[in-house]
């Protein structure tokens, strides 16, 4: 990159952390031998949890449907190994809270027998709706981490007549290289998946944005896409968070997604490269999403690299496969900037996990937070153009509405502000806390509104009941009177007959 580009084209936002991607990115892809037991969570996506349709004790094949989608936004879950369903219960969720959630546990029979798949020789002869249906049935969700059901995005793109498909090969998080690996090893699959997605949403052009710190992936993708002029490989500057959709869209198309709008509304749709590969698997081979590439990296890992893993495998098992130099001081699911802190490794891998990072003591050291010195570094780093220091100050003093006035809702929690903060203030935690608190208040508000409606309905009911009771009493009295009159009349009649 020349000086001109460096000065005028380099984004003004974001940070440039040491990426730590190599040597893990260069190590050849390894296969994890099927684990003895997998824990397949029912909720691996945004939206409603899937509903189990298998019974405990049932024999399942690899790729068999375990739980079906439930609700408008949901995705089905399939068996990642063949074996027997041993239980359906709670496991620790890959979530900072360490709370549990529902999962189907399968004891592997180590045979890895696939179900009968339904391959399609030419997916481009299928209608876009059929591709969307197959993608939905395969349980494909956004593998970049957002885990939004892909099929829903297809229908959205189709409906809003999106012209450009943006393929996210940014992988800007340090330490992670699973997207890099899939582009190097399976560029043909990725490009095929990209073309299938384009067909499904009716896009004319696909722009594949790849950060320029992955020259091998760029070369491999260029070679694979050479025959398809509509798929354009576009290297983008390495800058965190280039892999965030709004930033990537801006870097590739120059369009800015408005604060309260979705990407589709500016005529683009973003899909991750791994998602495209999964779409290729789902549509061309008929294989549901049951495996993915996971980067295992960090100072505590003896042989870092990318591993092809069945979903539902426990983190500990994967770490044991890669070997540990020392007990990890901190375990992170996903990247170090936005990943999820894990309390322990007995947590299943889910669809959205692109990596596991096991930090050693040196990497995990957290400096003590100090007071804000108002240097403004965070405002320069913020890719959304927000004022993190102001938002945090308002949140600290309990003024959430004030923080929202500073566009807290636009924060993408990328962590740039906390990364550059010279006082080491945990800014993102403030924002996460405030967002959660706001959501909780919204829930309380909805609850009390519902309670108000119920209370009003009850009052109406009580009124109606007392009215009906009064009416019934009046009716009974009238009946009694009538009966009495009738009896009197008949008695007098009888008397008349007698006399």
């Amino acid at each position, binding site marked *: 990159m020349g000086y001109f580009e460096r000065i005028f084209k380099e984004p003004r936002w974001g940070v440039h952390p040491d990426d730590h991607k190599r040597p893990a990115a260069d190590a050849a892809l390894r296969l994890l031998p099927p684990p003895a037991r997998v824990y397949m969570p029912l909720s691996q996506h945004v939206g409603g949890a899937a509903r189990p349709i298998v019974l405990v004790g049932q024999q399942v094949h690899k790729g068999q449907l375990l739980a079906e989608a439930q609700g408008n936004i949901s995705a089905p879950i399939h068996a990642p190994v063949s074996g027997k369903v041993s239980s359906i219960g709670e496991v620790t969720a890959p979530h900072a*809270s360490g709370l549990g959630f529902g999962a189907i546990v399968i004891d592997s029979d180590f045979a890895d027998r696939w179900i009968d798949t339904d391959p399609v020789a030419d997916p481009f002869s299928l209608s876009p709706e059929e591709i969307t249906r197959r993608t939905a049935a395969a349980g494909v969700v956004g593998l970049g981490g957002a885990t939004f059901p892909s099929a829903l995005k297809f229908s959205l793109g189709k409906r809003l007549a999106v012209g450009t498909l943006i393929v996210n090969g940014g992988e800007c998080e340090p330490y992670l290289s699973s997207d890099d690996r899939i582009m190097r090893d399976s560029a043909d699959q990725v490009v095929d998946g990209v073309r299938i997605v384009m067909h499904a949403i009716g896009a004319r052009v696909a722009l594949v944005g790849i950060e320029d710190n992955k020259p091998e992936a760029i070369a491999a993708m260029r070679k694979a896409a050479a025959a398809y002029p509509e798929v354009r490989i576009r290297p983008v500057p390495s800058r965190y968070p280039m892999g965030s959709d709004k930033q990537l869209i801006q870097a590739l198309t120059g369009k800015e997604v408005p604060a309260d709008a979705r990407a589709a509304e500016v005529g683009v749709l973003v899909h991750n490269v791994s998602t495209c590969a999964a779409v290729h698997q789902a549509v061309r081979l008929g294989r549901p999403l049951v495996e993915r590439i996971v980067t295992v990296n960090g100072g505590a890992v003896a042989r870092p690299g990318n591993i092809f893993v069945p979903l539902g495998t426990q983190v500990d098992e994967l770490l044991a496969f890669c070997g540990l130099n020392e007990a990890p001081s901190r375990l992170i699911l996903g990247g170090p900037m936005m990943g999820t802190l894990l309390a322990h490794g007995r947590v299943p891998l889910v669809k959205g996990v692109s990596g596991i990072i096991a930090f050693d003591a040196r990497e995990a050291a957290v400096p003590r937070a100090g007071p804000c010195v108002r240097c403004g570094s965070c405002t320069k780093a913020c890719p959304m153009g927000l004022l993190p220091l102001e938002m945090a100050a308002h*949140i*600290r003093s309990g003024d959430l509405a004030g923080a929202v006035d500073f566009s807290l809702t636009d924060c993408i929690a990328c962590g740039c502000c906390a990364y550059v903060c010279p006082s080491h203030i945990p800014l993102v935690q403030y924002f996460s806390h405030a967002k959660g608190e706001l959501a*909780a208040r919204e829930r*309380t508000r909805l609850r*009390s509104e519902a*309670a108000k409606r*119920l209370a009003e309905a009850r009052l109406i*009911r009580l009124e109606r009941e007392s009215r009906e009771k009064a009416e019934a009493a009046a009716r009974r009295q009238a009946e009694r009177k009538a009966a009495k009159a009738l009896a009197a009349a008949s008695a007098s009649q009888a008397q008349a007959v007698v006399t």
Partner: protein
Amino acid sequence: MLSAVGTLTTMGLVLGGLLGTAARYLAVEENPIEAELQSLLPGSQCGQCGYVGCAQAAAALARGEALVTLCPPGGKAIAEALAAKLGIKVDLSAVADDGPRLAVVAEEICTGCCRCSKVCSTDAIVGAAKQIHNVIREACTGCGACIERCPTEAMSLVPLPVTLQHWIWPMPANV
């Protein structure tokens, strides 16, 4: 001396008369903020605030006799909304908001007497005579009115269990 007394008396009378006339033209019949306050309150008439119902609580708030933090089922959200409406600042960190609570029936003690369901202001308790009652989670406001009614102490309030969807990050420790 007389002129001083006379002057002051006259001034007093004139100004008093003016104010009296103004009061007639600028009279405010009802505190208009009362209706707005009442619309903010949950309206479940649970009586936990110590007033008979939400309307009375709203009236007390409008008169400035009650604190905005008076509504336990409303929690911080309502306290904040009330404070904003009344234009006062309130330290919400001090509000004892132990989160939403939920009434539960201990099924082994419940005799199916139907007393609790009669007092429930949101009809959240279902059950017929001599049948075990149950609480509909979504409808229960956690007001606790049913607790005292239960002759066998089968009803109790439990905090709403925290799930993945409800968990929120704690505030970072202050420096």
